[in-house]
């Protein structure tokens, strides 16, 4: 914490009128540090979930499938070529490619067993259509045009995507609830701690009043002190959170058995925060510091109102 000492200093000569290094203020710094840490953790978690959810969702939405049923009297290969052509002509499609029989088999194998030979079965065949621009792709016209091929059906995975979105939303909303909870708790904690610090500084306030200091003067002296406490605490908390994430990323990538790493990656994406994410987390620091300063300013004001006549 020594590197944070600069936060204690002001211009050199006079000692601050409000004592700076008391145990109560250390408690407050610590408390703010914990709360910032927890907020940052939740916040980082939110970023990670949100990222992987949108990654899943865009993976899925970048691909639609045309399924062609084997129908007596239709030439499957010709139909596959036709579907490819129609799809490729649709706006927003980058590429359409029929799966070979072997590829289709590979998709089915886990369900039908290893030894199955599908070559002499008439199984349905698939055309995988890659979208360059999922949002603006004209899937409706594609669907209409496919009607000329008997047994063709367009599968846009909508149901899947909906489910995924709902799930991601649910997780994010729960996370935001917890985040809010922690922020509210932080503010309450600051409020209580400010009051207790104030009341242990009651003597100082009294004396300042008796020698004619205005409420503005007193509030300023306390305000700047609490801003410094808030900054110190939230900096410690924010930096700890980033270190925590770095350690976590390091541990998951190097120590855990790779099978669980895969699980985690599937669930949360990689535990790697980009510079932007770190920046976003660090932006909590000034916010919490300012909230602290503001809360304590309000508290000080109320306190001063109560004790002057």
């Amino acid at each position, binding site marked *: 914490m020594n590197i944070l000492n600069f936060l204690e200093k002001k211009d050199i000569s006079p000692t601050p009128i409000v004592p700076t290094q008391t145990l109560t203020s250390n408690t407050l710094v610590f408390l703010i540090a914990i709360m910032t840490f927890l907020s940052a953790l939740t916040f980082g978690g939110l970023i990670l979930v949100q990222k992987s959810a949108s990654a899943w969702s865009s993976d899925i939405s970048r691909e639609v499938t045309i399924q062609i049923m084997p129908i007596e009297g239709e030439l499957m290969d010709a139909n596959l070529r036709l579907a490819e052509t129609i799809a490729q002509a649709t706006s927003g499609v980058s590429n359409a490619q029929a799966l070979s029989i072997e590829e289709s088999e590979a998709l089915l194998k886990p369900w039908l067993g290893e030894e199955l030979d599908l070559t002499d079965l008439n199984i349905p065949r698939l055309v995988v259509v890659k979208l360059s621009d999922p949002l603006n792709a004209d899937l409706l016209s594609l669907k209409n045009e496919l009607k000329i091929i008997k047994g063709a059906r367009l599968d846009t995975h909508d149901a899947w995507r909906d489910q995924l979105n709902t799930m991601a939303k649910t997780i994010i909303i729960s996370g935001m609830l917890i985040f809010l909870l922690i922020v509210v708790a932080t503010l309450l904690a600051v409020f209580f701690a400010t009051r207790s610090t104030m009341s242990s500084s009651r003597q100082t306030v009294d004396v300042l009043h008796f020698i*004619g200091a205005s409420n503005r003067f007193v509030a300023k002296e306390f305000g700047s002190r609490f801003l410094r406490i808030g900054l110190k605490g939230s900096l410690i908390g924010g930096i700890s959170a980033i270190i925590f994430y770095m350690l976590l990323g390091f541990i998951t990538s190097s120590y855990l058995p790779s099978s669980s790493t895969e699980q985690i990656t599937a669930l949360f994406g990689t535990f790697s925060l980009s510079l932007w994410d770190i920046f976003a987390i660090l932006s909590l620091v000034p916010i919490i510091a300012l909230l602290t300063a503001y809360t304590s300013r309000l508290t000080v004001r109320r306190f001063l109102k109560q004790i002057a006549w």
Partner: protein
Amino acid sequence: MIEFNNVSLRYGDGPTILRDISFSIKKGSFHFLTGSSGAGKTSLLRLLLLSLKPSEGKMSMLGQEISKLDRDRLLQLRRHIGIVFQEFKLLDHLSTFENVALPLRVLGQQPKEYEENVKELLNWVGLGERMHALPNVLSGGEKQRAAIARAVISRPDILLADEPTGNVDPELSERLLHLFAELNRMGTTIIIATHELSMIKKFNYPQIALKDGGIIIR
């Protein structure tokens, strides 16, 4: 300068401490405030410091009717009053020097401006060598002198002192009273609460004597 009109004081719903008190004090006068322990000396001084409101009656100070002032004007008025508390009320985390300089800081003066004055005054009250000590290592008498220095440093128009010599030896007592007399000659109105009969006799200023809630000025 100071006018009390039928002022009464009681704390909460306790007994009446001061009853229907009326008096006026002229600018530049010097009074002792006497009365037995618990008679209400400290309470009267707190009225004068504007830190207590009278339960009844009117008081005016420095030409202003107190009940008509808002809070900011009150605090402004207080800057013209210096006070020595019976229990000193020094700030524990500030050095003696900084405690004494506090009223000047509140008035917005810079360290450069007040440093000389503060040091001179500290030397005068015999605290030159304890200047950088924190209050809780000072002896009783040293604290008291620091409190006196803080009260007079800003040359207030009115000086209130609550038993300012209760903790010092008679010699130093007299020296401090000479300091008060000096300030008085320069125009400060002074009221000192004290038990020390020998002082009262020696300096022979008029007395405000509290007895059973009333006052006698003699």
